[in-house]
C-alpha cells in the first residue's frame, strides 16, 4: 500500500486535530490551565478549518479520489459538520468541565471530531472502521470524565460493551464484503475496481454473491447501533441520562453523522442493488427499521420527565426519519446498476446537518446553565426559564421547533425533502413493489411529526408557560451561550434561506451518484496520476 502526498495533504485538517489533541494530552500533565487548553483547542479547530478551506478548491470538488480518501461534496459537508460538532461541544463544556481534567476532555472531543472527519472522507473499509473507532474510543473517556457517580459509571459501561458489540458486527460484515469483493476499496476506477465495481461485474461468481445480503444485514446491524435505530437503541436513554448535557450533544450527533455516511457509502454506493440476491433489498430493511424506530422513539419520549432521556428518545426518532432517506435512496428507479437515489441522499445530508445543529444548540444551551454541582436534568427545572434566562430559553425553543419540523426553521426543509422522496415513490407506478410501503411510511412519518411535537411542546411549555420554582440558576456561561446562539442562528438562517444548503445537499447526492452511474462504460478515469502510479507499481 502506498500513500500519495495528495492523500496526506487532503487529510491535513484531521492530522492537525489529532496532533493538537495528542499535544494537549501530554501537555496537560505538566501544566494545568483551563483557558490555556481551551484556547489551544479552539485555535486548532480554526487551523483545521483554514486547512479545510484551503484544501478544497471548487474545481477539484468530487474529482479528488486518492486511494482510501474520497473528497466529494458529501464528504466535505460532513467534515465541516464534524468540525462544528467538535467546536460547539468544546465551547459547551468550557465552564462545566473539571479544572484538572480540561485537557483530557477537550483532547478527547478533538479526536472524536477528527474521527467524524475521517469517516466522512473514507473510501475504504479499514479507513472507515478506523474513523468509527476514533469516534467511539474518546467517547468512552468523555462519558466517564463527565460526572463521577453510579449512573455515569453505568452509562459508560453500557455504552462501552454495546459499542464493542456493534463494532464486531460491523467488522464481521466488512469481512464478508471484503471476501466477495477482494478489495477493501468501496469504489475504484475501471482499471482498479473497488467493491462497487466488482459487485457489478457480470462475470462475478454467483456463489460468492450469496454472501452479499449477509454482509448487508450485519453492516446495517452494526451501523444501526451508531444511529440508535430500534432495536439497537436500548443503551441510548440510560447513557444520555447518565452523562452531562454537553456530552449529549456529542453523543446525539457524532455517531449519527458517522452512521449516515457509512450507510450511504456502503449500502447505497458500494453494494449495488443488483448484487443482492434472494429477494432482499436494502430498502425493505430500511423501511421496516424506519417505521419501528420513529414510532418507538416518539411514543417513548412522550412519557419522559428527564430532559436528557427525552432527547435520547427524540434522537432515536430522528434516526427513524433519517432511515426514510436511506430507504428512498435505496429503491432502484434507474436502469440496473445506475443508482439514482430519488433525492434520498439529498434529504439525508440536509437532515443530518439541520438535526446536528439543532441538537448541538440544545445541548450547549442546557450546558451553559449547568454547573458541575448541578446538571439541569428534569423538565421541571426548566420552568420559568423564559423569564430568568430569556436567551437560553429562546435558543432551546428555536431548536426544539426545528426538530419538530416547523417552518420557517431548518427542520422543516429537512422533512420536506424526506417527504418528497417518499411520496414520489409512493405515487410512482413504475416501481410497483414499494408503492404501498412508501405510502405507509409517508403517513406514519407525518403522524409521528405530530406525536413528536407533543413532547417538544411540553418542554417549551415548561420554559414559557410555567412560573419559575424560585431557585437560582447560575448565570449562563458565555462561551457555551455563544455556541448555543450560533447554532440557533444557523437553524433560523437555513430555514429562512434554505437555497444554499439545499443546493449543497443536492450536489452531494449528485457526486455520490455519478460514481455509480458512469461505470461500466469504461470511460471514467478521473485520477490518471493515481492510476498511472498503480500501474507502475503493478508492472
Amino acid at each position, binding site marked *: 500500500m502506498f500513500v500519495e502526498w495528495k492523500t496526506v495533504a487532503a487529510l491535513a485538517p484531521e492530522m492537525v486535530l489529532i496532533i493538537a489533541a495528542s499535544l494537549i494530552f501530554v501537555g496537560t500533565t505538566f501544566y494545568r490551565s483551563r483557558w490555556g487548553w481551551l484556547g489551544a483547542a479552539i485555535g486548532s479547530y480554526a487551523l483545521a478549518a483554514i486547512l479545510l478551506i484551503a484544501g478544497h478548491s471548487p474545481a477539484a470538488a468530487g474529482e479528488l479520489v486518492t486511494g482510501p480518501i474520497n473528497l466529494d461534496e458529501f464528504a466535505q459537508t460532513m467534515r465541516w459538520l464534524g468540525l462544528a460538532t467538535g467546536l460547539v461541544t468544546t465551547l459547551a463544556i468550557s465552564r462545566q468541565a473539571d479544572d484538572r481534567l480540561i485537557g483530557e476532555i477537550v483532547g478527547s472531543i478533538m479526536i472524536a471530531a477528527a474521527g467524524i472527519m475521517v469517516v466522512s472522507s473514507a473510501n475504504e473499509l479499514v479507513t472507515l472502521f478506523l474513523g468509527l473507532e476514533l469516534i467511539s474510543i474518546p467517547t468512552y473517556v468523555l462519558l466517564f470524565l463527565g460526572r463521577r457517580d453510579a449512573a455515569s459509571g453505568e452509562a459508560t459501561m453500557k455504552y462501552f460493551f454495546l459499542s464493542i458489540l456493534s463494532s464486531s458486527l460491523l467488522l464481521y460484515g466488512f469481512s464478508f464484503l471484503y471476501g466477495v469483493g477482494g478489495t477493501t476499496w468501496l469504489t475504484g476506477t475501471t482499471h482498479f475496481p473497488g467493491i462497487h465495481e466488482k459487485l457489478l461485474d457480470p462475470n462475478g461468481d454467483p456463489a460468492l454473491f450469496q454472501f452479499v445480503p449477509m454482509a448487508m444485514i450485519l453492516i446495517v446491524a452494526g451501523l444501526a447501533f451508531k444511529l440508535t435505530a430500534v432495536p439497537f437503541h436500548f443503551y441510548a436513554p440510560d447513557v444520555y441520562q447518565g452523562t452531562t448535557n454537553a456530552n449529549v450533544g456529542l453523543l446525539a450527533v457524532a455517531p449519527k453523522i458517522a452512521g449516515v455516511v457509512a450507510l450511504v457509502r456502503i449500502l447505497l454506493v458500494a453494494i449495488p442493488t443488483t448484487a443482492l440476491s434472494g429477494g432482499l433489498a436494502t430498502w425493505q430493511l430500511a423501511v421496516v427499521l424506519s417505521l419501528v424506530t420513529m414510532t418507538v422513539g416518539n411514543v417513548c419520549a412522550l412519557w419522559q420527565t428527564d430532559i436528557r432521556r427525552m432527547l435520547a428518545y427524540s434522537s432515536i426518532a430522528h434516526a427513524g426519519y433519517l432511515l426514510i432517506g436511506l430507504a428512498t435512496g435505496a429503491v432502484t428507479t434507474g436502469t440496473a446498476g445506475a443508482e439514482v437515489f430519488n433525492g434520498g441522499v439529498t434529504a439525508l445530508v440536509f437532515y443530518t446537518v439541520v438535526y446536528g445543529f439543532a441538537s448541538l444548540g440544545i445541548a450547549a444551551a442546557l450546558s451553559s446553565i449547568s454547573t458541575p454541582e448541578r446538571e439541569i436534568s428534569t423538565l421541571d427545572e426548566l420552568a420559568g426559564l423564559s423569564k430568568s434566562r430569556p436567551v437560553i430559553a429562546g435558543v432551546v425553543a428555536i431548536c426544539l421547533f426545528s426538530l419538530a419540523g416547523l417552518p420557517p426553521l431548518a427542520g422543516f426543509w429537512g422533512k420536506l425533502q424526506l417527504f418528497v422522496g417518499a411520496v414520489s415513490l409512493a405515487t410512482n407506478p413504475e416501481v410497483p413493489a414499494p408503492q404501498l410501503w412508501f405510502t405507509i411510511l409517508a403517513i406514519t412519518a407525518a403522524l409521528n411529526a405530530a406525536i413528536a411535537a407533543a413532547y417538544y411542546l411540553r418542554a417549551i*411549555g415548561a420554559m414559557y408557560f410555567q412560573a419559575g420554582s424560585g431557585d437560582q440558576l447560575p448565570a449562563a456561561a458565555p462561551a457555551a451561550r455563544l455556541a448555543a446562539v450560533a447554532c440557533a442562528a444557523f437553524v433560523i438562517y437555513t430555514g429562512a434561506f434554505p*437555497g444554499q444548503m*439545499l443546493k449543497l445537499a*443536492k450536489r452531494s447526492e449528485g457526486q455520490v451518484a455519478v460514481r455509480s452511474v458512469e461505470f461500466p462504460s469504461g470511460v471514467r478515469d478521473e485520477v490518471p496520476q493515481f492510476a498511472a502510479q498503480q500501474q507502475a507499481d503493478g508492472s
Partner: protein
Amino acid sequence: MNTLLLTTIFLPLIGAALIGIFAHFGRDVIRGIALTITLLTLLMTSRVLLNFEPQSQNYAVSNVEWGAVPATGLTAGLDVRFSVGLDGLGVWMYGLSALLMVTAVLVSWEAIKDRPALFFSMLLLLEFGCLGVFAARDLILFYVFFEFTLIPLFFLIGIWGSEERRYAAIKFFLFTLAGSMLTFLGLIAIVIWNYQQNPAHEMQFGIAELTAGLQAHPLPLSYQIVIFLALFAGFAIKVPLFPLHTWLPLAHVQAPTAGSVILAGVLLKIGVYGFLRFSVPMLPAATVELLPYLLWLSAAGIVYGALVALAQGDMKRLIAYSSVSHLGYCTLGLFSLNALGTQGSVLQMVNHGLSTGGLFALVGMLYERYHTREINQLGGLARKLPVLSFFFLVFTFSSIGLPGLNGFPGELLVLAGIFQRAFGGPADPQYRLIALVSLSGVVLGAWYMLSLVARVLFGPLKEPHAEGEHAPIHDLSWREIAALVPLVVMAVWIGLRPGDFLKPMEPTLTAIVKPVETGPLRDRLQQFEPIAQYPKSEPAVADGFASVKE
C-alpha cells in the same frame, strides 16, 4: 407595485424585530411601535387593495427563487419560490387581517402587563403569518405561513391565556399540527403527480401552474379521493368542521382577547381558504364525489354549533360555538360549488371576521371591567355602559344577518347558493334536505345571539360584585372605541354596498368552480345517487325532478 405588497407582508416582521431591540424602553414604547406598525401596514394594505385589478392574474406579484434545487442527472430539482400576489380569493382576507390586527393591538393596550415586548412581537409575527398565507402563490410558501401562524398563537394562548392555558395551547397546537401534517403529504402528492405528468426539469410548486397542470391532467378518482382526504384533515380541523371542532372552544376561552380576535377573525378562515385554493380546483372530481358528506358535515356544524351555543353560560364559549355554526355556512356555500355559493362563502369569511372579531373584543372589554364572562352574573348593562351596549348590538345584528349590515348579503348568498344547487336543476334529493336544515341555522343564530343580548344588556342591572368592590366601571374609552369603529364601518359598507366587495372576487371564484360547472363533473353532480338500485327510474338520470315524485 410589487414591492408594496412585499413590504406590507414584511413590515410586521420588521416591527417584531424593532420591539425586540427597544424592549428595554418600557411598555409605552413597545405598544407604540406595535400600533404604528399595524397602522402603517393597514395603510399600505389599503393602498394595495384600492388598486386591485380583479381581472389580472398577476396583481402585485413578487417572485423570487427561494428553496430552489437544480436538477442533477436523473433526479428532479425543486423549484420552491418566494412568490406572493393577490387574487380575488385572498384579497379581502388579506385586508381583514391587516384591519383586525389594529383592533387586536388596541384591545391589548391595557390588558397586557406581563412581558409586553414578547406579547406584541408575537402579535406582529402572527400578522406576518396571516398576511403571508393569503398572499402566497407558491404551495410551499403557503404551507410555511400556514404552519408558522401556529407558533405565535401557541405562545399567545399559553403565556397570556386564562387558567387552563397550557392545556389549551398544547391541544390547539397538536390538533392543528396533526391535521396539517397530512395536508402537507397531500400537497406534496399533488406536486409530484403534476411533475410525473409533465416531467419538466424541475418540480413546480406554483399554485397557478399546479392548478392548470392538474386540470389538464386530472388525477385518477381514487387518488383524488385519497389526496382530498389528506388535505381535508388539515383544512377541516382548521375551519373547524363538525366533529373536528373540539379544540376551538377551549382555545377561544383560554386565549387572551387579541388571540381570540385573530383566531376567529383570520386563522379559522385559512381552512376555508385552503379548500377553495387547493381542494376544489385541483381535485374537482373528489370534491363532487364526496359532496354529500361535505354538505352534511357543514349543515351539522351549523345546527350543532347553534344548539350548543344556546346552552352556554360563558359568553366567550357561546361566541366560540357560534363560530362553529358560522363557519358551517362558509363551507356550505363553498361546497355548493356554484358562483353564488362560493362568493357568499368568501364574503361570509370576511363578515364573520368582522362581527365575531368585534364580539370577542367586546367580551374582552367586559372581562376587563367585571372579571367575569358568565352570562348569569351580568344584566342590564345597557343602562350603565350605553356605548359598549351599542357596539354589542351592532355586532350582534351583523352576526345574525340583519339587512343593512354585512351578515345579510353573506348569508343570503350562501343560502342562495345551496338552494340553487338543491332546487335549481336536477340534483341529489338529499341536498334539498340539507338546504332546509341549514336554513334553520338562521333562526337558531338569531335566537342565541338575541337571548345573549337580552340577558346581558337589558333587564335589571346586575353586576358580579357590589359597587365599590371593584374598580369603578367606566364606559368605553376612546381607545376602545377606536378599536371597534373600523369594524363597524366595514360592516355597514359591506351591508349597504356588497357589490364593491363581490365584483373583485368574481373572476377568480368563477374560475375555481368552472371545472365543476361544465363537462362530466356537472353531469355527475346532477345524477341521482343509487342509479343501479332503481332500474325503473332510469329516465330520472336525465330529469331529476321526475324521480322525486316517484
